[in-house]
């Protein structure tokens, strides 16, 4: 039989194909990040740090910031940043995922930064962006970690006369943040404030995380003094932009996690012998790894498309569609790849001293952060006119 290509409907050409291969500058960035992480973020050190009181690798974060400009990448040059775009940031995110590096990248360099860039002309935002760009400080977005992009935003935090009261939990990278960007309800309209942790009024408590490599925390505000960044619709728009940017970067991270799981499992299957053969010569296992590889390839294409949409697309609904596709597909691929890794490593992958569980925990937590796959698909259904009923 002959495989016959489908008849394509050439009457609906795409306006502009997305840029889906990384360029030479991005390739160089990728190599630099990878080299730095190889030198300074071995999984053994990540595991050793996980249960300590210092779950973040601050010196690694400083290197990423100072040597590679990671913290300022998304920040316009006028604020001292590199003026890069989401495609550049995704290159870094993927590598940080591949090393499950314990740095506050998602909270600070993605979520808080994207929110502030969206309202960069506001004085408080400008000031924070300058300090973030230089790596002088670290921030996070004070919003529940599982908020779904594109949904109706809500907050239980009230601000009265610049004093904030309420609870936000769980928040990613809270413990590392000197500034927390909080969405509040302020005399009848939404507003974005910056607050600083404080033992009396803005209490940060650690939450034991499923993902040992990405700390989360709870924030309890009791008349905490905040600095107003912006109020009204721009506040909501800034948070919405941060969420969609975060989901796209998370997708890239998940590709990194999945690729690591694939590479590590393939290597193990070549090495481990049972019944006088490398177990990677057993066809059932080969087919399963081929399926993981196939899905990682699709996930990578989707994550690149999402980053490209953020970088260059002008229609916000189209950005939301492409990001939802990536978030859904990359989440499931990353969980699938790490679960296959655990299974095909047999007993050794079940032990604490093997890194597999760090990646499993990351993959499963990432699946929930910024919306589970089904939630992205539910949102997508609205955006493509395929309602559930």
């Amino acid at each position: 039989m002959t495989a016959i290509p489908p008849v394509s409907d050439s009457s609906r050409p795409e306006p502009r194909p997305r840029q889906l291969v990384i360029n030479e500058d991005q390739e160089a960035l990728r190599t630099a990040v990878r080299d730095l992480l190889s030198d300074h973020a071995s999984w053994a050190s990540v595991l050793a740090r996980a249960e300590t009181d210092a779950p973040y690798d601050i010196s690694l974060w400083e290197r990423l910031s100072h040597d590679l400009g990671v913290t300022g990448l998304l920040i316009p040059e006028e604020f001292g940043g590199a003026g890069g775009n989401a495609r550049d940031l995704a290159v870094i995110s993927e590598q940080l995922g591949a090393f499950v590096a314990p740095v506050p990248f998602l909270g600070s360099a993605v979520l808080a930064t994207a929110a502030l860039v969206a309202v960069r002309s506001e004085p408080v935002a400008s000031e924070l962006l300058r300090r973030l760009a230089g790596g002088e400080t670290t921030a996070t977005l004070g919003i529940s970690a599982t908020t779904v992009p594109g949904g109706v935003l809500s907050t239980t935090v009230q601000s009265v006369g610049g004093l904030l009261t309420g609870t936000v939990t769980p928040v990613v990278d809270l413990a590392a943040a000197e500034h927390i960007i909080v969405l509040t309800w302020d005399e009848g309209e939404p507003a974005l404030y910056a607050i600083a942790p404080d033992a009396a009024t803005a209490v940060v408590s650690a939450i034991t995380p499923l993902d040992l490599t990405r700390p989360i925390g709870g924030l309890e505000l009791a008349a905490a003094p905040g600095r107003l960044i912006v109020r009204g619709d721009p506040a909501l728009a800034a948070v919405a932009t941060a969420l969609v940017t975060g989901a796209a970067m998370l997708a890239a991270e998940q590709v990194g996690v999945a690729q690591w799981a694939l590479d590590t499992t393939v290597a193990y299957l070549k090495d481990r012998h049972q019944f006088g053969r490398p177990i990677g010569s057993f066809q059932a296992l080969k087919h399963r790894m081929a399926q993981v590889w196939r899905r990682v390839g699709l996930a990578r294409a989707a994550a690149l498309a999402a980053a490209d949409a953020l970088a260059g697309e002008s229609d916000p609904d189209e950005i939301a569609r492409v990001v939802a596709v990536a978030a859904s597909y990359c989440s499931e691929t990353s969980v699938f790849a790490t679960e296959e890794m655990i299974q095909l490593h047999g007993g050794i992958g079940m032990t604490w001293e093997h890194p597999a569980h760090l990646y499993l925990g990351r993959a499963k937590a990432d699946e929930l952060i910024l919306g589970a796959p089904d939630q992205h698909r539910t949102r997508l259904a609205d955006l493509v006119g395929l309602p559930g009923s």
Partner: protein
Amino acid sequence: MVDADVRGRIARLVDEYAAGDPSRPPVDRGAFLGSRFDAGLAWVHFPRGLGGLGLPRTAQIAVEGEFARLGAPATAQADNVIGYGMAAPTILEFGTAEQRDTLLRPIFTGEDIWCQLFSEPGAGSDLAAVATRAVRDGDDWVVTGQKVWTSFAHTAKWAILLARTNADVPKHRGLTYFIADMTAPGVEVRPLRQLTGEAEFNEVFFTDVRVPDSARLGDEGNGWAVAQGTLMNERMAIGGGATRESGMLGKLAGLWRDRPELRRPALHDRLMQLWVEAEAYRFSSERQRQQLLAGRPGPDGSGSKVTYAQLNQGSTALELEVLAAEGLHHEDWSLRRPTESNWLAGGATHRYLRTKGNSIEGGTSEILLNVIAERVLGLPREPRTDGSPTGKDVPR
């Protein structure tokens, strides 16, 4: 995508035939396509003089888009899938000067329809086990054997044929690749009815068919390598819909959108999973195209056909479930012999049944997963039990 010179050539050709003018009589497609070939606008990545301009392979998409925009007649691809997708690139790569000069143009114009004679009842996934014999006799080869799963055999003038010319060497090395005249004495074509009711395929019997040595493609004994090139071209041709919601998934999504009374909430997430995977597949196909364009072809193409089959099968299965009562009805079981491939034209049950073949034809998904595991991931081959059997040793 293509420069002004190429756009100019296209415009002049369309003007010459007044092809875009609806007030004029319809253009003779064969003549128009012949002129396209002569102008280097057939396959623009082919060399000048052989239908091309030596442009990058990826320029073809823009060229077709431009012709379509100007209202020119479509190519003959749908009638001559094997000719376009398999014979032409193989002839270009392995053919003699004379073969290239004489065979390529009528492929493009649709004058010569082609078919492919590779698979046999005993040689499916294990293609190197082909048993059809070609015995040298003077300047000719005498070919005897049975081929199967042959699309277009009933309309074809020519076939690409894989036959065993030496049974005493390891089985991959005893094969030779030929161009066979389907109108020659001793060629018999029988329709092979398939599970949709129609006979898209044929069985082809060769009984002492004489094939001149000048119709050999590549060296004697080198047939396996030539065939691998052909199959690579076939698998690459599975491009995936270039547009969102194309193909089988498009049918499903359209049904869901247009028939609200059929929607069931419990099926919605499956629909959206397919939608998402189809979109990821579309991005992946575009990424492969860009990698090729950038001169850095990636290995992702090996997985594309597996994904394509899964998506088609998943979409059509769900379509029947959405249809419920209407899904119990098949349009037509009659024995037809289609001469063109358009799987979207039939009904939902036809799509469901026909796409079952997508994971079998052109290399089963199982064989492709083996290829990925061994060639891309470098996982060890399974221990071979057939050693390097000669053609004689292959079990039938």
